[in-house]
Each structure stands twice: as structure tokens, then as C-alpha cells.
């Protein structure tokens, strides 16, 4: 089913066509995925890229973000490893580089959640599987560990009017971006963002937890999983995801198969209630790795 792009989506398509023609079909591909995908993109653009300058900046950020990922993915086909890099080095190079985060990384990441089919599918899984399970409990407090753009917190606040969300990130730029994102949707009264390292200061008990594509950024993902499991009270659920075979500027822990993630979840003491996995695209040749996502609802 194809739906006509909304005005800001049409403006983004025109911006790509003029300045980054490699991505000129991206918006049409969202439209061909159906009304929900089109509406979600338009909603994000209308609230966060209402003027043309913001739209051009987001398009440029996305182009740089996507092209960097594509170059790394191509190298990964012949050298399937991530560069050896510590978390501290990555933080210095990426998360604490406010200009890079604000201009390229965060706008690129946000648009990728709408423009990449496997990212859209993961968000749909979150909105269905996780929101359904948490709706059946009394708890309306949520903690998001690793806010990034704030998209998952925003969707949570939109979908559940009684939810209160606290989000952590170690990046000042991410905290600022997420705050502005959620303010643009008029949801700030139920949202608090903190500059906080969840490994050093794990969340307290009582909240449902959301941790989207954080594990692959860590040297020791099982340490965070253990901390999250300790923080998760009975009758509460966690939504935990990771990227696999997905080289990026800040990915340092390489997951090759969902079974590796599941083994770590179980070793931390979680029970898997629901699971999702999706590839970014078919392999160019049989046997070549492709980036993918794995997501879990656990308790």
C-alpha cells in the first residue's frame, strides 16, 4: 500500500533529491510501506523539522550517518570485526562530541528509525509486544537507559497517557536532543532526562525498563544486563534490543547471532517473553553478513 507523503515528508524528499540524490527514493520507500510508516515520518518531521533549515540539517546529518554506516558495512563483509576500541575512547570520540552528536549522529539516527525498514519493524514490535504487556500491569513508571534521540520514550508517552518516563544518557547532546524532542510533542510534564551512566548508577526498582541499542556500545554488556535485572521488580517488564553485525562509529561489542544475546539475557536472570529479529536488507551474496536487530520483551 502506498500513501502520498505529507508536506514535510515531501519537502524531505525534495531536499534529498537536490542535495543528496543517493537517498532520493528513501521517502517514497517509506510511503510504499504503508500509511503508518508515512504518518510516523510526517509526525516526526512536522514537530522537529518544521522549518526548511532544520530539514536540510537533518537530511545532511542522515546522509553522513547513513553513508558512514554503508561504508563500514561494506568493509565488514570482508573483515567481519569491529575496531578494537574502549568505551572511554568511544565516548570521547562520539558521545561527548556535542557538535557531531547534534549535527550528524542524532538527526541521522532519528531519521534512520523512520527510513530503515528493520528499524520501523522494531519500533512496531515495541509498540505492540512491550506496550501490550506493560499495559496489563499496574506500573506506569518507565526508565529508558540510553535515551539517544528520545524516540522510544516519546512513543511510550504518546501511547500511554498515564506513563511517566525517566531517561538516562551519558551524552549531554543526547539528553538535550531528547528533551527538545519530547518538548516539541508537548510531553515534557511526564518526562525527565538525566545525564547518568546506568552502569555506575542503575535505576531503582519499580519501573518498567527500556534499553534500545545500547548493549553493542559497551565493553561488557552482561554487566549492564545484570544491573537491569536487579532493578526490575516482579510484575515489571523490560524491552532490550541490540544491533548485530552492524559496524558503526560507536559499536564495540560484536553480536553475530541473536542466540548470543538470548544467552546473555538468560545468564543475567531474565525470562524472554517475546522476541523479534530483522535484517536491514538481503545479503548481496549468499553468506555475506548483513546488519540486523534483535529485540526482546523480558521479565
Amino acid at each position, binding site marked *: 500500500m502506498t500513501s502520498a507523503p505529507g508536506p514535510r515528508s515531501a519537502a524531505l524528499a525534495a531536499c534529498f533529491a537536490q542535495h*543528496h*540524490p*543517493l*537517498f*532520493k*527514493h*528513501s521517502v517514497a520507500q517509506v510511503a510504499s510501506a504503508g500509511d503508518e510508516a508515512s504518518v510516523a515520518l510526517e509526525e516526526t518531521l512536522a514537530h522537529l523539522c518544521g522549518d526548511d533549515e532544520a530539514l536540510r540539517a537533518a537530511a545532511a546529518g542522515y*546522509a*553522513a550517518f*547513513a*553513508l*558512514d554506516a*554503508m*561504508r563500514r558495512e*561494506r568493509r565488514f563483509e570482508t573483515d567481519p570485526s569491529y575496531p578494537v576500541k574502549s568505551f572511554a575512547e568511544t565516548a570521547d570520540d562520539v558521545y561527548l562530541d556535542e557538535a557531531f552528536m547534534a549535527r550528524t549522529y542524532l538527526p541521522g539516527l532519528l531519521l534512520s528509525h523512520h527510513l530503515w525498514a528493520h528499524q520501523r519493524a522494531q519500533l512496531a514490535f515495541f509498540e505492540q509486544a512491550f506496550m501490550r504487556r506493560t499495559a496489563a500491569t499496574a506500573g506506569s513508571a518507565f526508565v529508558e537507559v540510553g535515551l539517544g534521540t528520545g524516540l522510544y520514550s516519546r512513543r511510550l508517552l504518546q501511547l500511554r497517557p498515564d506513563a511517566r518516563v525517566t531517561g538516562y544518557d551519558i551524552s549531554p547532546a543526547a539528553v538535550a536532543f531528547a528533551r527538545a524532542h519530547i518538548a516539541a510533542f508537548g510531553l515534557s510534564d511526564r518526562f525527565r532526562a538525566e545525564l547518568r551512566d546506568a552502569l555506575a548508577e542503575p535505576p531503582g526498582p519499580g519501573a518498567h525498563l527500556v534499553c534500545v541499542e545500547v548493549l553493542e556500545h559497551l565493553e561488557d554488556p552482561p554487566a549492564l544486563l545484570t544491573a537491569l535485572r536487579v532493578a526490575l521488580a516482579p510484575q515489571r517488564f523490560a524491552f532490550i534490543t541490540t544491533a548485530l553485525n552492524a559496524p558503526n562509529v560507536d559499536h564495540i561489542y560484536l553480536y553475530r547471532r541473536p542466540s548470543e544475546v538470548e544467552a546473555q539475557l538468560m545468564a543475567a536472570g531474565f525470562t524472554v517473553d517475546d522476541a523479534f529479529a530483522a535484517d536491514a*536488507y538481503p545479503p*548481496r551474496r549468499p553468506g555475506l553478513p548483513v546488519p540486523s536487530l534483535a529485540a526482546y520483551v523480558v521479565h
Partner: protein
Amino acid sequence: MSGPEIPERVRGVLSTVFDVPAHTIDDDASMDTVAGWDSLQQLTVVLAIEEEFGIALTDDEVTTMVTFPLIVAVVSDHLAA
């Protein structure tokens, strides 16, 4: 390198990448006319062009050179520099 060599070598690269006869890559060939030329295959085109001509393409060039004449123009600029 003489000017006329560049278009034919670019044509040869595209012919190899997309596995089609060189004569089907006409002077108006682009992402819109060549089957399989999408954003993922663009990286294959870029790497093949870089190898063929011994040049390194910038991000801006990679995201804009999505037609045969634009690739020829970008390569010509690099080789003239």
C-alpha cells in the same frame, strides 16, 4: 589520460557492477534507469570507480554521483586536480 577514455572506462565499471553489456549503459544511465542501482549498490559503484581510477571520493561526491555523466564529471575533476 585523454578525455574520451574516461567515459568508456566508467561505462566498463558500470557494466561489470550491474552485470550488463557495456552498450546498454548509455550516456543518460542513472539510478533511475539501471536495474539494481540502488543506494546499497552505489557503494559497489564507488569502490569500483575508486579502484579503477586510483582516486578517493568524498562523501558529497558519493551521494551525488548517481548518473553516468555525473560520475564522468567527478572522475575527470579528480584526474585533472
